[in-house]
């Protein structure tokens, strides 16, 4: 499991280099071929014994974050979100600015707020990053417009749970790396794709089809739990601790019936707990893959996590292990290939 290291690396959409380098160094020797494509997707190939089919496994390397849009006269920075970041999670946080600089998202002291201001959510218009500079000139020497900004959270494990940033989708990346570590050769070819720019509109995965022509695709995601205390159980998307999440449909795509069925049968056969994603909000690269080229039957397996797209999300380590177990069995059994070719 590489979740700790992966979680702590900055890699906002469009700036995935550090994540890609980390993964590449660790998988290179275990695969037959490795390449980085025009958009920056990292693709690893494990040739099959018979090479009679192509299974594509996908996880995205990027995380949501921020970008500097303006340097203000007082030396603070204005910024906009890269991907979906609720501005309400930002006040009072430390952030990483560019490669290795630090900043904070401050907020007007509660004493200075008028009563109507207290209940007004923060917005990108009024939030600023402070780096200790007192003038625009001082700031411009250190920061440029367009600089990426990422959350800054140390990974921790306690009580069977992990906390950290970017679990969406470093969780999926870590599972793909675990599968590569098994160093198995299957009958069919397996393509491992660590893709860029998922959080800004499922972009990196768009160029995979033309390069790889897979017969079937399986997307490994980290998905929202939504099992917060004030939310009635019937509205939960998933529940932490109940095992890997299997998606039947999400925005713009209904999972391929055969793939969906194989995932469930595999879980049942091997006694792996699993749950359905009960909400169809949000999309994954499965939707993009299915509508590129001639299309491909695709499915989605996710690790549930609470409070994703914030600086601090929570994952259950049992869910991680069971997700790995399910993916491993699906690939080993190979039934997924038989179903789509038959």
């Amino acid at each position: 499991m590489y979740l700790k290291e992966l979680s702590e690396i900055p890699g906002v959409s469009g700036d995935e280099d550090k994540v890609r380098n980390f993964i590449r160094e660790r998988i290179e020797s275990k695969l037959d071929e490795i390449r980085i494509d025009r958009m920056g997707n990292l693709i690893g190939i494990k040739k099959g014994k018979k090479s009679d089919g192509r299974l594509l496994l996908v996880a995205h390397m990027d995380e949501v974050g921020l970008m500097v849009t303006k340097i203000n006269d007082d030396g603070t920075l204005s910024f906009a979100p890269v991907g979906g970041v609720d501005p309400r999670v930002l006040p009072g946080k430390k952030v990483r600015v560019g490669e290795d600089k630090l900043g904070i998202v401050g907020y007007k002291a509660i004493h200075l707020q008028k009563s109507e201001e207290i209940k007004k959510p923060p917005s990108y218009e009024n939030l600023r990053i402070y780096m200790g500079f007192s003038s625009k000139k001082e700031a411009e020497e250190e920061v440029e417009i367009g600089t990426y900004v990422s959350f800054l959270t140390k990974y921790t494990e306690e009580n069977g749970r992990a906390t950290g940033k970017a679990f969406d989708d470093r969780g999926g990346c870590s599972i793909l790396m675990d599968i590569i570590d098994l160093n198995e050769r299957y009958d069919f070819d397996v393509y491992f794709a660590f893709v860029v720019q998922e959080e800004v509109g499922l972009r990196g995965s768009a160029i995979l089809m033309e390069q790889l022509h897979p017969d079937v695709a399986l997307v490994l995601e980290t998905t929202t739990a939504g099992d917060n205390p004030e939310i009635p159980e019937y509205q939960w998307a998933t529940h932490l601790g109940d095992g890997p999440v299997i998606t039947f449909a999400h925005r713009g795509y209904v999972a391929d019936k055969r793939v969906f069925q194989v995932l469930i049968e595999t879980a049942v056969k091997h006694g792996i707990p699993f749950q359905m994603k009960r909400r169809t909000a949000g999309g994954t690269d499965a939707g993009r893959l299915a509508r590129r080229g001639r299309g491909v039957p695709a499915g989605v397996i996710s690790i549930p996590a609470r409070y994703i797209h914030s600086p601090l999300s929570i994952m259950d380590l049992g869910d991680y292990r069971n997700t790995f177990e399910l993916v491993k069995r699906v690939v080993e059994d190979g039934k997924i290939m038989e179903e789509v070719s038959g």
Partner: protein
Amino acid sequence: MNLETKDLLMELSRIDAPSGFEKEAIDFIEKQVKDLADVVKKTRLGGLIAGVKGGGGLKIGIFAHVDEIGFVISKIEDESFARLETVGGVDPKVVLASEVKIYTRDGPTRGVVGLLAPHLQKPEDRKKVPMYDEIFVDLSVGSLVKSVRVGDRVVLRGDPIELNGKIVGKALDNRAGCTSLIKSMELLRKYRTLYDVYYIFSSQEEVGGPGAATVAYELNLDYAIVVDVTHADDAPPFYEKISLGGGPVIGFGPSVDKDFWKKIMDIAKRNGIKYQKEPLPGRSGTDTDEVQMTGIGVRTALISIPLKYMHTPVEVVDPFDVDETARLLTHIVVDLEV
């Protein structure tokens, strides 16, 4: 072993000591000051007095509160979620997606203040700030989840950092003040003073509590200087802005003694200390308000350290302001003529 101002600020910021729960901060400060004072004693209400004997004339007290804002667990739901009540003023906007530390009877444990991911939010959710009746702590990430009880103290976690020479961290309101008192005690060792000087590290300021006034009474002080923090780089439009790095802020208004105030301004000028002025037309919102009307009355002064983003986990102070405040305090007790 004297710590540098910067290190002292960071060490003090790391300590969790919300109002009524000041022991760890007080114990740390006691270690720092025990060799700098003639008498060190704990107060009845959880504070600390460090006395430096002078000529035995008047008694001057210098106050800084050690407590910080925080929370208390008010309800536990579904075994692994809890609700919070604030201790002092904590903006609900600065707590989401943060880690908290909960002090249970079996030891500290972790929690996360969660927020529904954007994917599942309704459009109307985005337009509102969750208040404390909606904010929840996810206790499932701590090994002592079962030990958490209603009444346990909670603080937002956050390690201090340095940003371009400034120190950023929680609880710098008023550990910055505490630091300037300790630094002033170090400086005072080079001088003799006519007066008995008491450095008082007091409790429960953030809840408007009794920590400072009771000590002022016990010591029967003639003069009191309260050292606290004030808002830097952000002021209502009709107020002069106070700058980070602009030096100590000398307050003036009804809660401050007019003559003492004048003398402090003179002392600052004579010693080349850069200072800023702050009008206090009503209550000052510090311990000064209570200390002034203690016993037969105390002649008070308020000196504040500029601080940005007050009551957030990322309060900012400039160590220069802390050092200059220390210098001013020492000169006041050495140079004051009455």
